[in-house]
């Protein structure tokens, strides 16, 4: 597939810098090269504060790189990435809309008649297991249910690229596994390109085709890229028991561990300063 289709996401020497309040320039990510093929599931793992989300925001077009380029399906990205759906870490649902209206809005704003948008939203709610919760407002749903609505909200627009920023971070361990399996199930239906940011290496290996490791910030770099050859379809809970999984985990963790320690030391120093 990668041969015929253009690369979904291609970051070329992307550097992202912010100007701090005191005028200094903080380089979050330096010279990142990253590509995601059509239909490929790539997970970015790195220590806290390494700029994983920054890289994701560059791909989404929410941030502009200070240097380097971002290409989406072989076209340079300018403005927002219209091919991408973004699943945020924090709650991003519109609290004043019901679950079904939250899902339907992505269609409504592009001019889909309301009745049709609602019918399709109902289908999506059913496929994320919330068919009976259409008229609930976000505050009436649990954290896991809100993530399901958010997933349906993003997927209903059928984006070619799915960007996910630690989407299951705030959930408990069991719910995370259930959500992981749901994600894989939905993804395997039409294989979008996925860029999935997480700090959880096990989650990354269990979900992805490729795991990319970032060094501790500032000036974080991409320091490793592993192909995950575990057979699909996978079950998040069961794949963790397999020998190949352990071997991969040991290998990648060997690299990641040092960065996590560096990141930890830096965060404590920053706290003391």
């Amino acid at each position, binding site marked *: 597939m990668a041969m015929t289709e253009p690369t979904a996401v291609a970051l070329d020497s992307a550097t992202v810098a912010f100007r701090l309040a005191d005028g200094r320039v903080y380089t979050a990510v330096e010279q990142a090269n990253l590509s995601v093929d059509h239909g490929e599931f790539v997970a970015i793992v790195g220590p806290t504060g390494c700029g994983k989300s920054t890289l994701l925001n560059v791909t989404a077009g929410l941030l502009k790189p200070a240097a380097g380029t971002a290409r989406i399906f072989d076209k340079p990205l300018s403005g927002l990435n219209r091919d991408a759906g973004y699943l945020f870490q*924090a709650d991003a649902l519109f*609290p004043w809309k019901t679950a079904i209206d939250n899902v339907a809005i992505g269609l409504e*704003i592009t001019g889909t008649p309301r009745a049709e948008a609602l019918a399709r939203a109902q289908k999506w709610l059913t496929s994320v297991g919330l068919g009976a919760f259409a008229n609930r407002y976000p*505050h009436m749903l649990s954290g896991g249910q809100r993530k399901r609505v958010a997933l349906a909200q993003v997927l209903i627009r059928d984006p070619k690229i799915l960007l996910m920023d630690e989407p299951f971070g705030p959930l408990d361990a069991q719910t995370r596994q259930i959500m992981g399996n749901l994600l894989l199930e939905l993804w395997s239906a039409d294989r979008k390109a996925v860029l999935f940011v997480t700090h959880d290496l096990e989650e990354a290996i269990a979900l992805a085709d490729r795991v990319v490791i970032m060094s501790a910030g500032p000036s974080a770099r991409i320091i490793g890229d592993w192909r995950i050859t575990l057979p699909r379809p996978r079950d998040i809970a069961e794949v963790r028991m397999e020998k190949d999984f352990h071997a991969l985990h040991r290998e990648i963790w060997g690299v990641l561990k040092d960065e996590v320690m560096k990141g930890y030391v830096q965060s404590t120093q920053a706290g003391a300063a």
Partner: protein
Amino acid sequence: MSRVTLLSLQVLVAVVTLALWQLFSTVPVFGKVLLPPFFFSNPIDVFSQIVKWFSTGVIWKHLAITLWESILAFVIGSAGGILVGFWFARQPRVAAVFDPYVKMVNALPRVVLAPIFALWFGLGVWSKVALGVTLVFFIVFFNVYQGVKEVPTTVLDNGRMLGMNERQLMRHVYWPSALSWMFSSLHTSVGFAVVGAVVGEYLGSAAGLGYLIQQAEGVFDVAGVFAGMFVLSAFVILIDMGVTMVENRLLVWRPTPVTRD
């Protein structure tokens, strides 16, 4: 505390207060009436005054005038507050330029404007409306401003990533957020609309509850003053109940702090 106990205790407070008032204003204690009727009247006189107002129907005209002034003040003040609030929140430079003047006008006790408004708009309805507007406007303005400013970045980014343009962000994100802030201050702004109307009437008018109280005071009719006060607070409580009903309908999406049984 059960509902029945609570309700009976609440009634008890009213009964005891009224009984003491009646007692001390009519029965001499150690040869001296503690609450001279000239200054304090008594509950029976006040009550019969209220009954007289309602049975003759005089009161309706005054209630209607005060209500009308309050509604106008609320609607005009809110509309202005929403417009300017949105404008300032979306144009930080404009907000920065006008900031000291907004603070200055808001710091002014609005009552001192009443004579000016009477001069400009006459003794009719509009001088009271103007006074109410100056009170309502700032409440709504600050809340709408805050509501637009306080939209979480994530929700905004989500709207953008879902493909919303500026106009759609306005309609689906900024507007509902601003509205929820405005409604959270609905009790205050409606209350201020009534305050504006009554104070305006009190300071110079020919009708309304404030006028009624002022007239009674002018002829040392203390029973009339108290009667006017009671009617006024009942009027405000009724309006407030209406506001609560509207609020419950419009803000269903917000978590209710009270648990339902």
